């Protein structure tokens, strides 16, 4: 559990938005959508891992089953 995850996700977000803008300006709109999708799914993987850890911790601490 480390702070770098926040920077990792923020970095993915910024880079995805840069990709989106640059590809749209160069006229390749389809690729920009694909790039955005890839960025979102990458961030999703990291976030889901975090949330899984959260839920396990909560289950342990509060005796929820």
């Amino acid at each position, binding site marked *: 559990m480390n702070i770098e995850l926040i920077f990792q996700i923020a970095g993915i977000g910024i880079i995805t938005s840069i990709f989106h803008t640059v590809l749209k300006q*160069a006229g390749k709109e389809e690729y920009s959508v694909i790039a955005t999708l890839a960025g979102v799914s990458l961030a999703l993987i990291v976030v889901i891992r975090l949330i899984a850890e959260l839920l396990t911790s909560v289950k342990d601490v509060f005796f929820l089953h």
Partner: protein
Amino acid sequence: MLRLLGACCIIAGCGILGFSKGEQFRQRAEMLRCLQNGLNMLEADISYGSTPLPLALARVAEKVGGITQVPFAQAARLLKENNGLTAAEAWEEGVNKLDAEFTLTTEEKSILILFGQGLGCSAREEQIKNITLAREQLRMAELAAEEARNKNQRMWQVMGLCTGGAIVLMLI
């Protein structure tokens, strides 16, 4: 510390890849400009100097620099040593050699080869008209290449850097 260094290396590497892809666009526009220059000099040599074709081509090859030298130099060399080749064939060989070193589009290649077919087989005025026609066509191609370059060069440079950054982020 070592990780920071590695991260910089990855970003720099991917950035260089992106930049080199962008370079291609810049080089194409520049090559077309130089080709037009070369044709200008050829026209000057033919109309004012009345130099024979192999010599004119060799002179242009000397004056123009870089990769555009290739078709002129190759055509001049082939005409000087092998008397059986027509000017058109020699020029086509030169164009093929240029194609091998820097991939030409089909349109550029056809412009150059068509120009070659008019080389050396008609009077001076016809030659000059041929050269002017080829020059005009090359100018249109150059405008198109400039436009493509404005769109794409920036894009590839930024994409290269961003891909490097993305890889670094994934490995953190």
